[in-house]
């Protein structure tokens, strides 16, 4: 069982011992030179081998947090420990034990795919005897085996992204940080990449991932945290977080939604069987969220029938992470981060 609250891990009982934490951040603040408090007191405790998702609306502090964990930014306050090493005092040791994939694709376009991966091997001191095999394996894994000796400048955006991903894993680090790794990938490549991430996670690699795609989190992550305005506002397993939405979701499709949706919504609100429900009208009918949604279906159906409202479709389901996100942050997860991203030039200038 995962601990329900990341922020109170010292008190909770289900936590792994301290040295088993791959990522251990305490009260991390990051303030930029212009005074922007991008991260305000983030606590994270990610045990070894966990697949951890990190979500948040535009400009909430996701990239700043992941850069701080990966030693690219120095926390203004608080401590970061990766694999037991302090990210400031033992920076070199942290560098050796992590892989980091930036949001912007980071490859050398003048080099070939193979040369890019080899350079990464060399950076991390992969023994020369192992390099050829590992390069071959990684390039096949990201489906670039056929173009291994072509220069990266000729690649499509998706190919470059996959090449970048391959270079992050050359040294088989115990922890990898991935900042929106699947943004810009086509659906097929995304699924391939997911399979790959699942494979390395199964081998024991701790994965810390930010993403805009909630289905990605739903499929891959053991736990996730949602950050808003630099503070973590929710952290738990995907299923547990879906509980915060307030029950299951019942979607009714009406024959005449424009004229009858309001009336149907009133009936749903008055329904005793639904209890304390949240009811909204939609373009196609009515959406009801309630702990008793499943039990109350037939009652509601009868009530609507008695009121002469024709129901043409009916669906009861668990809430999605999108609804979790909306309910926790009050913002839709859709908008991309791009506009609010700081340029590299300004991220360099963190207040020390």
């Amino acid at each position, binding site marked *: 069982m995962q601990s329900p609250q990341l922020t109170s891990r010292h008190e909770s009982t289900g936590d792994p011992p301290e040295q088993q934490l*791959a990522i251990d951040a305490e009260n991390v603040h990051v303030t930029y030179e212009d005074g922007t408090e991008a991260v305000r007191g983030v606590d994270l405790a990610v045990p*070894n*081998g966990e697949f951890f998702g990190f979500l948040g609306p535009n400009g909430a502090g996701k990239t700043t947090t992941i850069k701080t964990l*990966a*030693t*690219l*930014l*120095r926390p203004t306050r608080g401590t970061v420990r990766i*694999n*037991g090493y302090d990210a*400031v*005092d033992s*920076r*070199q*040791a942290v*560098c*050796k*034990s*992590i892989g*980091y994939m*930036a949001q*912007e*694709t*980071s*490859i*050398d*376009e*003048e*080099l070939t795919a193979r*040369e890019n991966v080899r*350079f*990464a091997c*060399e*950076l*991390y*001191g*992969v*023994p020369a005897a192992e390099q050829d095999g590992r390069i071959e394996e990684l390039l096949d894994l990201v489906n670039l085996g056929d173009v291994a000796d072509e*220069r990266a400048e000729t690649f499509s955006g998706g190919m470059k992204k996959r090449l970048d991903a391959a*270079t992050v894993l050359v*040294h*088989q*680090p*115990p922890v990898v940080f991935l900042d929106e790794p699947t943004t810009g990938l086509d659906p097929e490549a995304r699924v391939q990449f997911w399979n790959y991430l699942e494979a390395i996670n199964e*081998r*024991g*690699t*701790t994965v810390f991932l930010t993403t805009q795609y909630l289905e990605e989190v739903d499929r891959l992550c053991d736990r996730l945290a949602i950050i808003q305005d630099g503070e973590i506002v929710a952290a738990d397993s995907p299923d547990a977080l879906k509980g915060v939405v307030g029950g299951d979701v019942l979607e009714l499709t009406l024959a005449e939604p424009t004229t009858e949706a309001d009336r149907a919504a009133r009936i749903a609100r008055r329904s005793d069987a639904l209890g304390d429900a949240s009811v909204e009208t939609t373009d196609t009918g009515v959406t009801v969220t309630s702990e008793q949604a499943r039990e109350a279906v037939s009652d509601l159906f009868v009530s609507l029938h008695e009121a002469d409202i024709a129901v043409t479709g009916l669906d009861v389901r668990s809430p999605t992470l999108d609804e979790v996100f909306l309910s926790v942050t009050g913002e839709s997860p859709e908008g991309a981060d791009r506009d609010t991203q700081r340029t*590299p*030039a300004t*991220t*360099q200038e*963190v207040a*020390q």
Partner: protein
Amino acid sequence: MSNATDDAEFAGDDTAQIATGNSFVSDLRISLKRWLVKSTRNPFVTFSSLVQPVIFFVLMAEVFGAMAGGTLSQSLGADVDYVTYITPAIMIQSTLAAAAVSGIGVVDDMESGMFDKILVSPMNRGALFLGNVLSEVVRIAVQTLIIFTLGYVLLTLESGASVEGYLQTGVPGLVGILVVAVVFGGVFMAYSNVVALVTRDREATVMIANLLTFPLLFVSSAFVPLDALPAWIRSVAVVNPITYGVDGIRAFMLGRDVLTVVEVTAFSGIWNTVVPAVAVLVGFNLVFGAIAVRLLDRASKVSVK
């Protein structure tokens, strides 16, 4: 530094591991290799290293030679051919062209994300930058040797077989030429990195480099003896590093003291030129180098402890 025993402690299983990292020398070799490969891939580099010097050399030798021959005889005597005279200028001009845009490498790395990628790796930061510098040194040395050979060929074509006197100081002189070229290159590499790190923009770096460096060639002793030039040019030439680079190399080529902007007589023969010229260039290196190192340090301070 971590060591092998850390692996067992933190590995999630037998596949995950702590990278071993490298020694400084290995880091330097890796960084140098990458920059050298990149140089060979870049058509701009090939052009400015090989094609441009040839064109410049031939045109200047022919056009300026026709005009400056008389002046040259007055200043240095009739035995100095103009080809020999401007060979050092072409060497310095090519070195300048290479060094003045070397800062682009750093800007490109920042734009492409390679800079951050290397910063999160265990690579030594000093090795990262020194690799770039060394690749430029290699390029400057190769260019200089090419131009040296080219000068010899031109002189042979012009004056038949009698080419003794092209390099008065022999093989040690050639080593001296390379040293002066590299030390001179250092000034403009540092300058270029300062511009690149301040602007963080590829185009601006190229533009500012060209804008400043091309005119500098003409307000120096590069093409015509200074005593044949207007007084204001002679004044500017005193503070122009190109004067010292060209005169330093020229002293080795002609085997005599050619420095006219400052009169040094403490040494003997060519050393009256070479010693002050190298000293001035080292001074420029220290000033621009200190600024560049400071800026580079700041650029990577994001994360360093």
